[in-house]
């Protein structure tokens, strides 16, 4: 196994150092094989000494060998880390559930630290009776458990004009997928009594950005949740503790965190986050507004620039995730040659509407360069487009909603790179 240069160096060194720490696994195939693998023939410390007791880790954390599996940010993207974004390390994850501590963050005024005892949710506007709820009140409503993806409208936005960031964490990591426990928003609105003239709602956050968005009442009454748990535990502060809005299938900006108020109205509010931002500029200088749904999308998470092939030729596992705001993902195709020939991937794990889906494609790699792509198809028959097709439809300045097919070029050494192809 030869040392590699370039962008994947860190990942490779992390891999090697982990192997060495674990007992020289890299030697197994070499001269040590005859004498036996010291990972087996020598008594390891963890096989001899006592470990920590059950009182040592009241809230467990990952193994120190997984310390590199963290959110990352891209400092040059924004003026300040307080109104900015961090990225989920998709290349290190499997299955469909994102661990709470790794869910990407997007704040507009930093992480609000809300005292649950002082938490209040107000419903006002075109309702029979404006109401105030405490957190204790909310815990007395009937609850639902749902798995949904939350994707930032700007996910992959830096890639509109070409390959820029080298790793799926950065190109596709403004997404997470968790099980939410919450109250159907419909029940809260019905508690206040929505007037017949109502057509829109406006959720508002309690942070210093006081985030607001306009949402049609039809969506609010359909599948939105007022959530207070993610993956079984309370929301993390950076995800809106104690309460956030869940807007299944729709762009992440609308999932208002630290939710303090829901106003009911008869028109949209055209606030900053649906005029200046989260509108999509088209080539003629006009812009789409209210582009809510996130279209079908996928990405191969391994191999990828941060997760090179380190085992050499032979049996190789390609894996990735796919999702659609319009429904479930029934099928993902994978190509090894840049889209000349496609193969149907194997889906594994639960398949929920508006949730991430996990796919695998296993093959015998002959060591030749690969041009890897994945192509999602959702339950409506929509097929994930190429970037070229999206640019033909929308030009280069729309920033948001880039669901184009991603290409990784894998060379003979197994190093993967973010590229665009003809």
């Amino acid at each position, binding site marked *: 196994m030869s040392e590699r240069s*370039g*962008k994947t*160096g*860190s990942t490779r060194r992390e891999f090697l150092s982990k192997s060495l720490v674990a007992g020289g696994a890299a030697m197994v195939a070499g001269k040590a094989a005859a004498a036996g693998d010291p990972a087996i023939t020598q008594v390891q410390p963890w096989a001899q000494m006592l470990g920590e007791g059950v009182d040592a880790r009241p809230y467990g954390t990952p193994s120190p060998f997984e310390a590199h599996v963290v959110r*990352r940010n*891209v400092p040059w993207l*924004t*003026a*300040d880390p307080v*109104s900015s974004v961090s990225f989920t390390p998709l290349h290190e994850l499997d299955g469909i559930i994102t661990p709470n501590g790794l869910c990407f963050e997007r704040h*507009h*005024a930093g992480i609000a630290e809300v005292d649950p005892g002082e938490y209040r949710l107000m*419903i*006002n*506007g075109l309702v029979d*009776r404006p*109401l105030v*709820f405490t957190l204790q009140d*909310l815990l*007395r*409503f009937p609850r639902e458990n749902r798995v949904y993806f939350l994707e930032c409208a700007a996910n992959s936005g830096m890639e509109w004009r070409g*390959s820029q960031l*080298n790793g799926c964490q950065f190109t596709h990591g403004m997404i997470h997928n968790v099980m939410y426990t919450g109250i159907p928003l419909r*029940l809260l609105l019905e*508690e206040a009594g929505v007037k017949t003239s109502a057509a829109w709602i406006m959720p508002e956050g309690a942070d*210093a*950005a*006081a985030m607001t968005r306009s949402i049609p009442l039809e969506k609010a009454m359909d599948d939105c949740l007022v959530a207070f748990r993610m993956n079984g535990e309370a929301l993390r502060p950076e995800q809106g503790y104690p309460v956030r809005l869940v807007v299944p299938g729709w762009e992440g900006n609308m999932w208002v965190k630290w939710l303090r*108020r829901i*106003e009911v109205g008869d028109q949209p509010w*055209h*606030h900053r986050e649906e*005029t*200046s931002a989260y*509108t999509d*500029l088209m080539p003629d*200088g*006009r812009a*789409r*507004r209210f*582009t*809510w749904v996130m279209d079908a999308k996928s990405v191969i998470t391994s191999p990828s*620039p941060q997760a090179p092939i380190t085992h050499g030729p032979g049996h190789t596992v390609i894996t990735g995730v796919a999702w659609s705001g319009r429904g479930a993902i029934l099928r993902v195709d994978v190509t090894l040659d840049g*889209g*000349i*020939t*496609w193969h149907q991937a194997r889906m594994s794990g639960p398949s929920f509407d508006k949730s991430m889906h996990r796919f695998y494609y296993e093959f015998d790699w002959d060591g030749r360069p690969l*041009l890897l792509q994945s192509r999602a198809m959702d339950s*409506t028959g*929509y097929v994930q*487009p190429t970037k070229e097709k999206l640019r033909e*439809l929308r030009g*280069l*300045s729309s920033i948001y909603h880039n669901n184009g097919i991603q290409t990784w070029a894998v060379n003979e050494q197994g190093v993967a*790179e*973010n*590229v*665009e*192809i*003809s």
Partner: protein
Amino acid sequence: TPVLADGFGLGRDATPDEVAAWDIDVRPDGQGLPEGRGTVAEGEEIFTAQCAVCHGDFGEGVGRWPNIAGGQGSLADEDPVKTVGSYWPYLSTVWDYVHRAMPFGNAQSLTDDEVYALTAYILYLNDVVLEEDFELSHENFTEIRLENEDGFYMDDRDTLEVPQLTGEPCMEACKPSVEITMRARVLDVTPDTADDDAAA
């Protein structure tokens, strides 16, 4: 707290003072605007003291902080400049956003009159009003129109894109050949790689 007759009987009535404290949003038709007024000249003074450090003396933006003036006519250009003057459809959004979220780090510290004055100054920076003694108030607010009000249209993906992108895709011999046309490593802007390269 009386139990409500309908529903689950959870929550309590919001008082008018509570609703007034949190219901601060403003719509394009002026709904939600409080009484108040402020001039361009007053706004310039506030802007210089509280806003210019990030947004620049003329709204041009400092570093990566947002520019809020200029760029008129650039929206179809290769590098469009999207500002209040060139892009934003409604003045109400300026009033609402400045009032609810600015200054960054000291939100909801401006009085209603100060927000009117700042909004007037932002109009002046964008050449929407030309006189320094122009006064913006709750009375003349909805008379002001921004240039790009008609520059937006409802999401049309369902009719324009979805039909083109739906159906059985090609599986075999989909194109004659493939070439790499662009590489992220050439740009070299991915974080946490410079040190790694040095160490390699």
